[in-house]
């Protein structure tokens, strides 16, 4: 899952990027409003974390303009402003949630997970057939047998299972699993898919990640 952080305070931006990446998110950071809006509109993010007061166009303005293009991607505001009017103003501009500075990192994570909850309404558990993923402990089980994955493998599997029964193109996978610093050579996906399949089928189980030739991949129970 890929997150855009728009935050001018480098200290805050740094720990957000670090902490979220440790939680297997792909994180991009913009330090001012203009580049933030540009990145939000160009790239395909799963969530935006916006600081209210940033140089250039404000967080609220990014929110408003982004909402015109994209009504669904969740937006969370990070702000030191805490009056009711500010909150109302932000929600009216299309924000989904508010977190007041200073905040608990765990709370931020929980709120991000709420916004990204699965189709079943789960925030930390993802399931497909007999494969279970725990997003907070980063554990994967198949038939109650733990499978050890690397962070990227985990993120890839998470993305595929979140979009189960839907075709995921290579481009979309790149966009949502890797951050902006990754060059767009999509062949690396095949490498990760292969190693994922190997780990998931180690005990001789059925394949759940299917290749759609020339398009991408799909995670589903039936073959």
């Amino acid at each position, binding site marked *: 899952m890929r997150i855009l952080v728009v935050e*001018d305070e480098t*200290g805050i931006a740094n720990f*957000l990027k670090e*902490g979220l990446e440790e939680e297997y998110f792909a994180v991009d950071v913009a330090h001012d409003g203009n580049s933030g809006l540009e990145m939000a509109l160009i790239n395909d993010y799963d969530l935006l974390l916006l600081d209210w007061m940033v140089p250039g166009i404000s967080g609220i303005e990014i929110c408003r303009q982004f909402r015109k293009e994209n009504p669904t991607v969740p937006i969370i505001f990070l702000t*030191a402003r805490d009056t009711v009017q500010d909150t109302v103003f932000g929600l009216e501009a299309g924000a989904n949630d508010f977190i007041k500075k200073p905040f608990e*990192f765990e709370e931020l994570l929980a709120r991000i997970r709420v916004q990204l909850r699965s189709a079943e309404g789960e925030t930390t558990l993802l399931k497909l057939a007999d494969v279970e993923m725990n997003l907070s402990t980063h554990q994967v089980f198949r038939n109650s047998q733990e499978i050890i994955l690397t962070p990227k493998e985990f993120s890839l599997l998470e993305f595929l299972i979140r979009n189960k029964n839907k075709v995921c193109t290579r481009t979309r996978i790149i966009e949502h699993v890797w951050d902006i610093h990754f060059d767009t050579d999509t062949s690396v996906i095949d490498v990760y898919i292969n190693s994922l399949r190997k780990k998931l089928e180690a005990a001789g189980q059925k394949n759940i990640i299917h290749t759609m030739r020339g398009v991408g991949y799909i995670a589903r129970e039936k073959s």
Partner: protein
Amino acid sequence: MKFSLRNRIAFYYMMATAIVIAVLFIAIYIVVYKTVYHHLDSDLDAESTEVFNNIVILNDRFIFTNENEWREREHIQFEVNPTFIQAIDTAGSIIRKTPNLFEGSLNFDPSLRTATYFNSSLGGSPTRQLQMPIHNQVGNTLGYLLIAIPLEESALVLNNLQLVLLGSFPVIILILFLVTRSIAGESIRPINEVIATAEKITQENLEERIELPAHKDELYRLASTINGLLERLEEALEREKQFTSDASHELRTPLATIKGTLEVLIRRPRDTEHYENKIRFCINELKRMSDLIDRLLLLARYDSGKLKPQIQTINLSEILETVLARMVELTQAKNLEFQFDDKKKPLVEADPSMLEVILENILSNAIKYSHDGSVVRMKIEENLEETIFSITNQSAGISQEKSAKAFERFYRGDEARTSSVGGFGLGLAIVKKMADLQNFRIRLDSEEGKETRFTLIMPNTAS
């Protein structure tokens, strides 16, 4: 005694009018009085002329010639417009009198030697009387002629007039008071509206304004003056709010940074170097916070007026050198060249520690925003009253609109906000506050994209 304004206006107006009306009434009474008596006296005059026409004066006595005259109706009857005539000799004994006097006689005053009109009475009724001496050819007094007419009706007229005037006076005054009071009340009603509106305005609805009256009169000015006052109050309060909000933002940001960094740090074990880096980072953030708190406290102390400048005569160049020495590292880091035109040793009236803070802020600003490797020029000029210190640096500069805002608390140019330059936006606010306290003037002139000049104008030592 507390009178309302309307009662006071009505009272003063009533007093003034009462005096005018009183004078007018007295004048009316006097005129009527004079007219009435003039009329009576000329009647007496006419009668006396008639009597004298019928008197023949001899050497030692006088004789009435026309007997008919004494039998005229006015001399016989008593009821309607009677005229009483009586002639007496010098001893006061009656020679002749009209029949309507019956047994009575007119009063004679021997002290009156010439013709005199006076009020008298006859049988208890008031009369107007003329007493005239009768002289012979050589001027000896032979006797007196007394003529009287009743005064009753005239006295009645005058009495009635007096009654009407005295009676109507308080009524007129009372009516006047009530009318004035209601007019005054009507005309100060807008003031009451102003009061009512002003009373309703509190900190919560400070944006409300008093409705301006249609006419541009004193009330209009009152209302617009109050509105102006509210405007200034609102602005001050808004600035205060903005300041509090900015201050809390500035304090929360390093707090949030430290907290978040430590929370992420503790989530899993890391190597020593990682820990050291993060701790060092946090210490720096804490230092930044305590710097900010120091500055806020400084401003608060000057704002509250607890700290007063200790003005003394000091040498500007000396302080400047001290400050410059402290900035050597910064200057070298940016490879700046300082040009200082320092031929004079100007003395200024200032608080030394405040002047130091001012110069430090101005200089560090100049260094912060200067292009790397550029020249910073400083100049001290002097005229009779003032010493002018200016510092010019090559920088991106700021627009006029922004340079006006540069002295506001927590204002930072875009460049400063991206954190590459740092700072809280309090430096120039502190400079301004301290300059104000010492009666310095400050100016910021900037040519965008070229250079920025900061000027500090200080009063000279009074010689």
